[in-house]
């Protein structure tokens, strides 16, 4: 690990970076799936995770068992996701992407304000899964369990997703709708069903991310996951918004970079990290506007 040696980083830093990259990849999928079928950048995605984190903190404060908290987290996030689809996305579907983007901004700030009113600005602690922060020793190297769990969960979720998209008919319909929604509908693909499935999966992923993230950051505040969402959005744009795989890679890359640099740099330097990451994003977009992980001229040219 030459890079690691140069920066003086250890295995723990690498493992943390992997875990963070995995979580950001899941968020990128959650944002990318909905973008694929709705051409909508869901800026409120981070607030879904925030709501899930509050659910976990609520359960933790009342001493609920771990599974109870996780169940509540999934319930709250899914209910909010489906409500968002019904109340905001569906009525606005025929409008321009700009209208929908502004609407998701409104939803994001609404949810954040509700959290502030209900729970205050000081934050709550979600501690049910805190034991996962303890290290496990693998061949003489100490690594926090959560880094391994987060990486494994991310890989597991992505594998299940690949199977759903690749092998099921609803997955095929989602891929077709993302490529050309009008033609897909003309073939009989039901718009509401495809959008509902994408929104549901993005909600499941948000809840999963909420569980993992509260272990890494047990203090839940109204702006929980906000900075992560902005970084993931940058990563998704960086990878290539139009395609799920590049978007996911972009999310992983920015999560890994931020986790790695955050761990490797001394604190007086790492506070500038977000600025450097965004500068890097701007730089990449100037050179490769289509995204880092899309093939050059990647659009398939229709032959006559």
């Amino acid at each position, binding site marked *: 690990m030459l890079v690691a040696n140069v920066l003086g980083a250890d295995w723990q830093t690498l493992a943390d970076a992997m875990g963070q990259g995995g979580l950001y990849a899941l968020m990128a999928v959650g944002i990318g799936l909905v973008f694929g079928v709705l051409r909508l950048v869901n800026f409120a995605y981070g607030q879904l995770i925030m709501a899930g984190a509050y659910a976990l903190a609520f359960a933790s404060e009342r001493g609920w068992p771990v599974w109870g908290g996780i169940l509540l987290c999934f319930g709250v996030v899914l209910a909010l996701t489906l409500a968002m689809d019904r109340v905001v996305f569906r009525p606005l579907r025929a409008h321009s992407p700009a209208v929908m983007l502004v609407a998701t901004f409104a939803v994001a700030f609404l949810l954040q304000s509700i959290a502030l009113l209900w729970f205050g600005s000081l934050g709550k602690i979600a501690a049910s899964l805190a034991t996962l922060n303890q290290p496990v020793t693998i061949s003489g190297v100490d690594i926090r369990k959560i880094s391994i769990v987060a990486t494994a969960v991310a890989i597991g979720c992505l594998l299940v997703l690949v199977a759903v998209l690749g092998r099921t008919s609803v997955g095929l319909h989602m891929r077709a709708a993302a490529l050309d929604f009008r033609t*897909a509908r003309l073939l009989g693909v039901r718009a509401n069903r495809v959008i509902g499935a994408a929104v549901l999966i993005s909600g499941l992923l948000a809840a999963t991310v909420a569980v993992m993230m509260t272990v890494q950051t047990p203090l839940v505040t109204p702006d929980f996951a906000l900075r992560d969402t902005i970084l993931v959005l940058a990563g998704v744009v960086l990878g290539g918004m139009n395609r799920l795989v590049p978007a996911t890679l972009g999310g992983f890359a920015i999560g890994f970079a931020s986790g790695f640099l955050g761990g490797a740099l001394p604190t007086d330097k790492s506070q500038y990290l977000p600025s450097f990451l965004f500068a890097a994003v701007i730089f990449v977009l100037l050179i490769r506007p289509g995204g880092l992980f899309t093939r050059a001229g990647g659009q398939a040219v*229709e*032959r006559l």
Partner: protein
Amino acid sequence: MNEPALRLEALEVRHGAVHAVRGLSLEVDRGEIVGLIGPNGAGKSSTLHAIMGLMRPSGGDVRLGGKSIVGQDPETIVRRGIALVPEGRRIFAELSVEENLRLGLAGRRERGDLDADLQRVYSLFPIVQEFRKRPAGSLSGGQQQQLAIGRALVAAPDVLLLDEPSLGLAPRVVDLVFAALQEISAAGIAVLLVEQRAQRTVALAARTYVLSNGSLRLTLGPEAAGDTEKLVAAYFA
């Protein structure tokens, strides 16, 4: 029972200020190929879009087997038994040939005999079966057109609409596509063929409607195919 498979009654379509289709009435029966020709902007594609529910007609009616389908979603209309082969084929280039065909299954009304329907597509277009594992974007234009028609047929429709299927194809490939249309109609499917290639369409179809400025100008029988002067006159009427 005497209802035609597809009937348009005084159809009106407007895009904003443009009156694209004006009082168009036509019928297509089971097992019949009917042509719809006319210059660019005559309202041919608007007519198909109105039938498929992509735009709402401002007047008139679209009846499928006697029942109105106006105001329904495209995905519902497909399930009622109409399939469209869209202009420019609209193949999903990044999906495999087989996945494109499977997408056509989304519009099936009931399970039915899927294997028989797939076999029919494969025997009509052997190339689709041969290349089923390839990305659809790697097929030639003529092969993509065969795939587009095959994809519409696996939905087991009563009515097949085609929007300029011969566009950009070599004459030899057009022969193949038109021969396939004859087989399809022989199987009892009503075919509405929208085309720019007037002479070939008139020769193939039981009757051909000539559309100009959104209204019906003329109805031609196959015997008019040789009469080029009459065709040209019809076009510029």
